[in-house]
C-alpha cells in the first residue's frame, strides 16, 4: 500500500467498471435533463458504452495486476468474466429495445440499471477483497431487483421483484455474515491474506472458518440458483420481462460463479478440500431438481428457468472437482451458457409479443414453417443446451465432466451425464412443436424479427457454434486464467 492516489495503470485496470457506471449515470441524467423520451438513442448509447467496456476489459487484461491497494485483481480470470458478462449485456441490450418499445416502456432507467448491474458483475469478477466483492454483488443485485419489476403495471413482474428482493437480501445477509466470521477467524478481508493465514493448520481447523465458508457458500449458492436455494428462480424468470429474465440467467449467474470460484479457489483454498461432499450433493441436487422440474413445465420462460438451474448444477460439478482444470471448465461452460441461453431467451422475447401473450411451449407450434431462420437458430441454442456436439454446450459439458473424472468424481459424472439425457426430453419438446406440427394461430401474424433482434440471434448462434467448433482458444485462455494465485 504505497499510495492512496490511484495511478494511471490502476485506473486502466478498473476502466470497464468506471465506464459502465459513468455511462449509467449519464443515461439517467440525459433523460432527466432533456425530459424527452429518447429511449432508442439511449439504447444506442448503452450499446456503444458496452462495446467500449468490452474494449476496456481487453485493454485492462493487457496490463494485468492489482489495483487500488490490492482491492482489485485485474487478471485473466477477471478479464474472462468481464468479457462474458459484458457480452451478455450487449446481447440483452440488442433485443431489449424492440421488446420495451412494444410494451411502451423504453426509458433511460432501464438501460441505466442494466449498465449498473453489468458494472457490479464486472467488479465481482475482479474483486480481490471481500468487502469489495460484497459491494459489487449488491450493485449487481439491487439493479437486478429493480429490473425484474421494471414493468410496474405488470403484477407478475411485481411479484417477481419482491420475491427476488426478499430472498436475495437474505442471501446477501448470509454472505455478509460469512465474511464477518471469516474476518474474525483470519483477521483480514483480503483474499491473499486470508489464504496465507489459513495455510497454518491451527487456523484451518478453526470451526469459525468452517462456519464462515458455509455461510459464504449459501450466499453464492442462492445467487447462482444452486439447490437447495433455487426456489426463487422459476418465479422470478417467469415474472420478469423476457429480456430481463435473459439477463438474470446470464450475467448475475456468471458473475456469482466468478465470485464463488475466486473465494473458494484462492482465499479459502486451503480449507475447501474437505468440502467436496457439500458441493457434490448441491451439484447433484441442482441438476436433478432443475431437469426433472423442467420436464413438467408448459411455460417456456419457466422451462428455461429450470433449465438454467440445471445448468448451474453442471457448473457446480466443475466446482466440486476443486482443481484449476475444474475452474477452467466452469469458465468455459459459463461462456457457452451465456450465448446459448441468452439466444434462447432472445427468441422467447421476440416471440412473446405485446404483454407476453405467447409464452407457452405450445404457442411455438409450427414456428419452423413461418420463420424458418428463427426456428433454426433456436434449434442451435436448444441443441447446445442439450449438449449435442459442434455446439458450445457440448464442449462445456465435456470439459466439466472431464474435470470431474480427473478429480475422481466418477459417480457424479455418470449421474450428471444421465441427467443431461433426461434434459434432452424437454428441449426436444420445443423442437417437436416448432418442426413437427402444422403452424398454429400463435405463429400466424408473427412478423420477421427486426435488425437488432436478428443481430442478437445471429451473434448468439455464432458464439454457440464457434465455441463448439473451435473451442481451443477460449479454453486455453480459461486454463491459463484459472490458476488463481492471489
Amino acid at each position, binding site marked *: 500500500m504505497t499510495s492512496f492516489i490511484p495511478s494511471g495503470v490502476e485506473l486502466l485496470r478498473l476502466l470497464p467498471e468506471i465506464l459502465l457506471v459513468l455511462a449509467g449515470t449519464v443515461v439517467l441524467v440525459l433523460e432527466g435533463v432533456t425530459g424527452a423520451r429518447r429511449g432508442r438513442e439511449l439504447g444506442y448509447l448503452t450499446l456503444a458504452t458496452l462495446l467500449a467496456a468490452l474494449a476496456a476489459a481487453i485493454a485492462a487484461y493487457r496490463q494485468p495486476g492489482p489495483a487500488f491497494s490490492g482491492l482489485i485483481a485485474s487478471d485473466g480470470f477477471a478479464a474472462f468474466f468481464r468479457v462474458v458478462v459484458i457480452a451478455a449485456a450487449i446481447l440483452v441490450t440488442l433485443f431489449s429495445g424492440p421488446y420495451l418499445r412494444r410494451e411502451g416502456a423504453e426509458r433511460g432507467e432501464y438501460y441505466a440499471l442494466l449498465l449498473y448491474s453489468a458494472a457490479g458483475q464486472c467488479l465481482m469478477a475482479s474483486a480481490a477483497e471481500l468487502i469489495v466483492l460484497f459491494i459489487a454483488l449488491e450493485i449487481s443485485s439491487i439493479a437486478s431487483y429493480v429490473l425484474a419489476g421494471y414493468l410496474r403495471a405488470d403484477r407478475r413482474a411485481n411479484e417477481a421483484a419482491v420475491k427476488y428482493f426478499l430472498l436475495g437480501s437474505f442471501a446477501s445477509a448470509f454472505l455478509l455474515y460469512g465474511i464477518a466470521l471469516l474476518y474474525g477467524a483470519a483477521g483480514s478481508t483480503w483474499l491473499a491474506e486470508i489464504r496465507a493465514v489459513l495455510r497454518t493448520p491451527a487456523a484451518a481447523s478453526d470451526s469459525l472458518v468452517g462456519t464462515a465458508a458455509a455461510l459464504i457458500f449459501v450466499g453464492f449458492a442462492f445467487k447462482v440458483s444452486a439447490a437447495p436455494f433455487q426456489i426463487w428462480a422459476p418465479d422470478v424468470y417467469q415474472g420478469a420481462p423476457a429480456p430481463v429474465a435473459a439477463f438474470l440467467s446470464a450475467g448475475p449467474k456468471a458473475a456469482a460463479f466468478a465470485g464463488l470460484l475466486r473465494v473458494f479457489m484462492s482465499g479459502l483454498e486451503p480449507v475447501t478440500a474437505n468440502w467436496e461432499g457439500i458441493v457434490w450433493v448441491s451439484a447433484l441436487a441442482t441438476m436433478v431438481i432443475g431437469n426433472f422440474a423442467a420436464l413438467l413445465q408448459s411455460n417456456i420462460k419457466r422451462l428455461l428457468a429450470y433449465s438454467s438451474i440445471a445448468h448451474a448444477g453442471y457448473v457446480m460439478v466443475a466446482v466440486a472437482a476443486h482443481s484449476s482444470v475444474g475452474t477452467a471448465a466452469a469458465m468455459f461452460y459459463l461462456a457457452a451458457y451465456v450465448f446459448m441461453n441468452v439466444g434462447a431467451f432472445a427468441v422467447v422475447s421476440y416471440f412473446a409479443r405485446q404483454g407476453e401473450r405467447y409464452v407457452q411451449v405450445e404457442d411455438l407450434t409450427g414456428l419452423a414453417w413461418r420463420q424458418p431462420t428463427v426456428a433454426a437458430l433456436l434449434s442451435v441454442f436448444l441443441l447446445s443446451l442439450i449438449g*449435442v456436439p459442434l455446439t458450445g454446450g457440448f464442449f462445456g459439458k465435456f470439459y466439466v*465432466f472431464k474435470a470431474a473424472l*480427473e478429480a475422481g468424481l466418477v459417480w457424479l459424472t455418470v449421474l450428471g*451425464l444421465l441427467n443431461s*439425457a433426461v434434459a434432452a426430453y424437454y428441449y426436444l419438446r420445443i423442437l417437436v412443436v416448432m418442426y413437427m406440427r402444422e403452424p398454429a394461430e400463435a405463429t400466424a401474424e408473427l412478423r420477421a424479427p427486426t435488425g437488432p433482434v436478428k443481430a442478437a440471434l445471429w451473434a448468439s448462434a455464432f458464439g454457440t457454434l464457434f465455441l463448439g467448433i473451435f473451442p*481451443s482458444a477460449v479454453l*486455453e485462455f480459461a486454463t491459463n486464467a484459472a490458476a488463481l494465485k492471489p
Partner: protein
Amino acid sequence: MNLLDAVLFLPLAGFLIVLLLPREREEALRRLALGFAAATFLLSLGLATGYRAGGQFAFVTDLPWIRSPQIRYHVGLDGLSLWLVLLTTLLTPIGILVSWRYISKRVKEFYALFLLLEFGLIGVFVALDLILFYVFWEVSLVPMYFLIGVWGHERRIYAAVKFFLFTMAGSVLMLAAIIYLYTYAGTFDYVELLRLQAAGNLAFRRTEGLLLFLGFFLAFAIKVPLFPLHTWLPDAHVEAPTAGSVMLASVMLKMGCYGLLRFCLPLFPQASRDCAPWIVALAIAGIIYGALVALVQPNMKKLVAYTSVSHLGFVVLGIFTFSPLGADGAVYQMINHGISTGALFILVGYLYERKHSLEIADYGGVATPAPNLATVFMITALASAGLPTLNNFVGEYLVLQGAAQVNFRWAVLAATGVILAAAYMLWLYQRVFFGPAPDAVRAHVYDLTRREWTAMLPLVALMVWLGVGSETFLPAIRQTNAWILERSRATTEIRVELRVPLQEVRP
C-alpha cells in the same frame, strides 16, 4: 486432403449449399441433392479401388483440431469401414431417388438434412479419434430425429423422441467411458490407444475394464439394437419416411455393430470375453424373438422392422463368437442387411405410395397389376430369407459356421432364425402379391416407374454380386477382422496361444 476427406466433406458442402438455395425451387433442390450424393458415391468408388490390404489404416488424415485436451481430426479406412462407407454413399442417392415424389412438403429441409445425415454417418465409420467419433455419432442423430419427426407417419413425434432419447441415454454413458479412458491413457486417439495397449500400458483392473466396456457396449447395443433394448426400433422404422427407414435400417444400425468391432473388442478384450456368453444369449434371443414377432405382424413395415432385430442378432452372434468365420460373417451380414432390408423398405414404400396403406390385409394379388414390382420384391424377399446365391446366405452361413465351431447349440438355435425368415417372408409375399386382386388394388397399384427401377437396380445387382462374388468383398474384411480378433485375444488367451506352437513343435 485425400480422397476420404473429399468423400466425407462433400455431403457437408451439399448441406450448406442446399440451405442457401431458395425454398421455392424444389426441383432444383432435388437435383442438386442428388448431384451431391451421386458425386459422393462416385468418389467413394475410388476408395474401394484404391484400397490396398496392408498396413492398418488407409487414406489417413491426422490433423490437430483442439489442442488441449488434444482432440484430433484423425480419419482413416480399413476393411471394416470401407464397405460401410460405400454402403452409406450408395444408399444416400437411392434414398433421395425414392423420396423424389414421396416428400412433397418442406423439400429444402428434407434434402439438407439428408445430406447432413450422410456426413454424420460417413464420419462415424472413419473417425479414429474417440471424441471425433462421438461427435459424428451425435451429429448423425439430429438429422434422423428430424427426418422421422417431420416427414414421418401419424405417430412420428413419439417415435422420433423415443429414438433420440434411447440413443442419447446410451451415448452419454459412452462419453463418460471415453473421458475416463482419457484420464487413464492421456489420449483420445484410437491408434495411440492401441499402441499403448500393445505395449502393456493400458491394462485395466477387472471391474474397471468391465464398467468401461459396458459404457461403450450399452451405447452400441441400443443402436444395434440388441434384444431387449430394441423397443425404439419398430416405432422409429415404421414411422419414418421411406428414405429415413432405409438409412436407419441399412446404415444407422450398423453404427452399433461397427462400434462393437472397432472399440469394444480391441480395447476391452478381457471384458468382451467375460460378457460374451450373456451377449450371445441375448443375440440368439433376439434372432428368434424378432423372427417370431415378424411372423405375426399385420403391418408390412413393422414386419420388416422386426426382421432387422432378427438379422442383427446374427451380426452380434458372429462378433461374439470370436472366431474368424463368425466375425467375417458378421461384417458381411452388416452389408447384406443394409442392401436387402434397405431394398425391402423401399419396396414397401413403393406400395405405400400407391395405395397409402401399410396393412398387409389391404393388399392381395399385386402381382397382377405390377409384375415387375412383384419380381423385384420376390428377389429381395428371397435374399432376405437367405436363399443360396443371394447375399444373406453367405453372411448367415459364415456366422452359423463360426458359431458351430465354438458351440454347436448356438448354431442350432440361431439357425431356427433362418427357417423362420423363410416363413415370414414367403407368407408376406403370398398375402400381398398372390391371390385375386381386389378392385382397390387394381385401381391404385401400377408397375415400377423408371425412377423406381433406377433406385432398385443397383440393390438387386448387389444382392446377386454379394451372393456369388463374395471374394470381391471378403479379403479386406478378413484382414481387418484378423487383427481385431488378435487384439481381442491379447490378454486372456496368451496361455492358449503359447500352447499351440508347442504342440506343433512336438514331432
